């Protein structure tokens, strides 16, 4: 009876991974005195030793070539999976970003094209052709001055002069004809070259101060002869020409320059320039 109990206890200890010294003392004492039970205990221990030895001896691995095959299977699987991946997978996360980039590039291109079309040479020429008022328009009631702010295409007005012009509040005044300041623009002169194409009036002197005004008027062409103007031509003498007139602080005209010929003979009688009156052509 003791032998059977001991062998059951020994199997249970192995089954539960218990060491032999946890066996009841009475059973251990029985094994010490029982040859058959001691042999059984030795067999169990040797079997344990044998299994451990087998485990250590046969620590073999799969053939090395297998690694390459398995790895290729892994790559092939993921090559197949990627095209059918769901949008939530990492492999397709670039799609919205790519779409955004394409849209952004398209929008930028469209915008740049629009900018280019606006700033094309033709458009720039048109934009530059928009007249910048040189002087405030004279009131329609002004009897003698037909001021215009539209520069002539062939205007020889120095750019530097234009740049130095500053608008000044215009005062409707017909005294321009009598050398009094009228609708005018204040001009800051700090460069004598600006005045190079102005013709000094006989009674005047080229202003040297910075506080002068320029007015644009229409005058009969023949009234300019006495001042050495090159406006003389074969055209009718009653033609009006546009001229810039420099007026000093004292209100007296100092110089003029031809801007453009105008063809408004109808207005001739009504818009006789005082310049012409002062120096009528005989």
């Amino acid at each position, binding site marked *: 009876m003791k032998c059977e109990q001991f062998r059951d206890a020994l*199997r249970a200890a*192995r*089954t*539960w*991974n218990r060491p032999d010294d946890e066996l009841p003392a009475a059973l251990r004492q029985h094994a010490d005195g029982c040859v058959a039970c001691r042999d059984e205990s*030795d*067999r*169990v221990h*040797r*079997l*344990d*030793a*044998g*299994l451990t*030895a*087998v*485990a250590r*001896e*046969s*620590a*073999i*691995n*799969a*053939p090395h070539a*297998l*690694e390459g*095959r*398995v*790895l290729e*299977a*892994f*790559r092939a*699987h*993921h090559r197949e*999976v*990627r095209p059918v991946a769901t949008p939530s*997978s*990492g*492999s397709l996360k670039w799609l919205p970003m790519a779409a955004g980039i394409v849209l952004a590039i398209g929008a930028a291109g469209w915008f740049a094209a629009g900018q280019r079309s606006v700033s094309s040479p033709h458009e720039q020429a048109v934009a530059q052709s928009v007249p910048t008022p040189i002087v405030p328009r004279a009131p329609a009631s002004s009897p003698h001055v037909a001021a215009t702010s539209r520069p002539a295409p062939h205007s020889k007005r120095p750019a530097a002069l234009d740049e130095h012009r500053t608008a000044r509040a215009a005062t409707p005044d017909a005294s321009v004809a009598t050398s009094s300041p009228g609708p005018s623009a204040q001009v800051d002169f700090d460069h004598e070259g600006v005045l190079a194409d102005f013709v000094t009036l006989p009674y005047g002197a080229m202003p040297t101060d910075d506080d002068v005004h320029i007015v644009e008027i229409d005058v009969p062409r023949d009234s300019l002869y006495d001042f050495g103007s090159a406006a003389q031509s074969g055209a009718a003498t009653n033609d009006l020409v546009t001229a810039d007139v420099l007026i000093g602080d004292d209100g007296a005209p100092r110089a003029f320059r031809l801007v453009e010929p105008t063809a408004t003979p109808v207005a001739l009688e009504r818009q006789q320039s005082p310049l012409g009156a002062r120096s009528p052509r005989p």
Partner: protein
Amino acid sequence: MNDAEAGCGADAMTPDEEQDVHFVQQMASGDEQAFLMLYRRRQGPVFRFALRMSGNPLVAEEVTQDTFVALVKDASGYDPARGTVASYLFGIARNLVLRHLRQRTYVGLDEVDHAPEDPSPSVLDGLTRRADIERVRRAVASLPPAYREVVVLCELEGLAYAEAAAALACPIGTVRSRLSRARALLAAKLRGEAVGVRGIAQEQALRWTS
């Protein structure tokens, strides 16, 4: 020896086993290096298990390859709460091995019933010799699959009973009882005793239907 009380879920995992879980998660998203690391860590035990179960190196190689390919195709099938990666791989390998064993007609019964490993009654006395170690190995290989697998997993690969139970998809108690029975069979074979045909046949029938 194994710790029979050890758990097999994620809570009881060792750092190595947790690293395995990480590798599986990484390889599921296409990380080749993670797959390679996992393969290099676990190919040996899987191959040895397949070899000891099949007794054929070519079958073992095929089973090992199919095991990892199955993992590649369905990495999401692994649930850390149900066991370690190793036990999951052993479970796949076991199914593949058993498929091989079913396809051929049985092996083990004849060997177990009629071929004692050594006529010598004291084979265990010479276990220190290499030949005796080989006898033990052959004795293990001749065990019926239901016993062989628990011996291979628990005694040779060192899995805890809980891990083996997870791999074999059976209760821990079943692992213990089969292991106890397997050890008795091994001891008998190594003593040169013929093992009863009826007992083995009944166990195998039980194994195939479980």
